[in-house]
C-alpha cells in the first residue's frame, strides 16, 4: 500500500471547518483505498491542525489522482505542510502488527521524524528495533507500523513514519508516554543529551479521531499471551 500523510498547519484566521470540507470533498472525489481527513486532537505537538492520510494501491495510482489533493492542501488558509509518502512497513515484513482485541481503536497517531544522515546502518537498525518493541509492552497500541519515507516535504526531510492506532486518547497520553520502555529506552535516540541521539530535528507528533482501522496492511502480530493483555 502506498501511503500519503499531510499535516496541515492553518492560518490563525482560517475557517477550519471550510478547509476540512474542501479537503474531504477532494479526497472523496478520487478512488483512494483509504481516506482519513480530521482535525488533530489537543495534545498534538507540531502536529498541525488537520491530519490528512490517504492510501493507494501504488505510487503510480497516487500520481494519477493527486491533483485534487494537492490543490485542496495548498489553499491560502494553509501556511505550512509537513508531508511524507511511503510504502507501509517497508522494507521489512516485520515492521507492522495488529493486536487481537474485541474493542475498536479510536485514535490514530502518526509521528514524522528524521534520522540524521550520520547514523550508521547498525545504529539505524537498533533504533528501529527499539521502536518496534513498544507495542510489545503497551497493550493499548492496537496496531502499529514503522515505515521508511519515500518522499518528504516540510520542515525536515522526514525519514520515518511511526503510526499507531490507540484504544483511546487516554492510552496515548497516559500509558504510552509513561511506560519505561518509552522514556527509559526509546527516548535516548531523541534526546539531545544522549550520545545515541539520532533524531535531531523536531518531530511531528500528530493524532486524530478515527472511525475505522487505518493500518490495515498487516496481520495479527505474533505476540505472546502475556503480551496480549
Amino acid at each position, binding site marked *: 500500500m502506498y501511503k500519503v500523510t499531510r499535516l496541515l498547519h492553518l492560518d490563525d484566521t482560517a475557517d477550519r471547518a471550510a478547509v476540512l470540507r474542501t479537503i474531504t470533498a477532494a479526497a472523496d472525489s478520487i478512488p483512494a483505498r483509504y481516506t482519513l481527513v480530521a482535525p488533530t486532537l489537543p495534545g498534538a505537538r507540531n502536529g498541525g491542525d488537520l491530519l490528512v492520510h490517504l492510501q493507494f494501491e501504488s505510487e503510480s495510482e497516487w500520481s494519477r489522482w493527486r491533483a485534487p489533493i494537492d490543490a485542496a492542501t495548498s489553499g491560502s488558509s494553509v501556511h505550512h505542510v509537513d508531508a511524507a509518502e511511503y510504502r507501509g512497513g517497508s522494507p521489512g515484513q516485520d515492521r507492522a502488527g495488529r493486536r487481537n482485541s474485541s474493542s475498536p481503536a479510536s485514535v490514530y497517531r502518526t509521528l514524522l521524524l528524521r534520522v540524521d544522515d550520520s547514523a550508521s546502518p547498525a545504529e539505524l537498525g537498533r533504533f528501529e528495533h527499539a521502536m518496534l518493541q513498544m507495542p510489545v509492552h503497551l497493550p493499548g497500541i492496537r496496531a502499529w507500523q514503522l515505515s521508511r519515507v519515500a518522499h518528504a516535504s516540510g520542515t525536515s526531510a522526514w525519514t520515518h513514519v511511526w503510526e499507531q492506532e490507540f484504544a483511546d486518547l487516554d492510552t496515548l497520553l497516559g500509558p504510552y508516554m509513561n511506560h519505561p520502555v518509552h522514556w527509559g529506552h526509546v527516548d535516548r535516540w531523541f534526546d*539531545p543529551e544522549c550520545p545515541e541521539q539520532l533524531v535531531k530535528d*523536531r518531530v511531528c507528533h500528530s493524532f486524530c479521531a478515527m472511525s475505522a482501522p487505518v493500518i490495515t496492511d498487516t496481520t495479527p502480530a505474533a505476540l505472546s499471551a502475556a503480551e496480549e493483555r
Partner: protein
Amino acid sequence: MSDSTIYIIDRIVLKPGHARAFIDAYLSEYAPGARERGLTLDRVLVSPPAWIDAESNVVTATWTVEGPQQWWAAAVKGRHDPVYAQWWQSVSPMIVERSRSMAAAAEAVEGLCHV
C-alpha cells in the same frame, strides 16, 4: 526516595588529568540549568577516588525526578534548547566516552511498568 523515583545517570570517562576540571564545569555550568528543569542532583561519584597522573577517572552523576510526568516535563524543557547539547559539545575535548541512562530501584520496576 519513593517507588516512583527515576534516576538519570551520566557516566563520563575523562581523559587523564581532566576529571577535576570537568566536575567543576559540570557543577557550575551544567547543574544550575538541570535544576531549573526540575532535576535534583543526588550525587556525583568519582572512580577511582584519587587524582592519579596518566589515569582516567570515571565520573558518575545521578539526578532524580519523581515519576514519568516530571521526567517528561524536564525532558521537554531541554529538548528544544540547544544550550544543553552545546554544553556537552564544549566539554567533549575532556571526554573519552560517556553515556546517559535511566534507572529505577529494582523493586519499583513492576510499578513503573504497570501504567
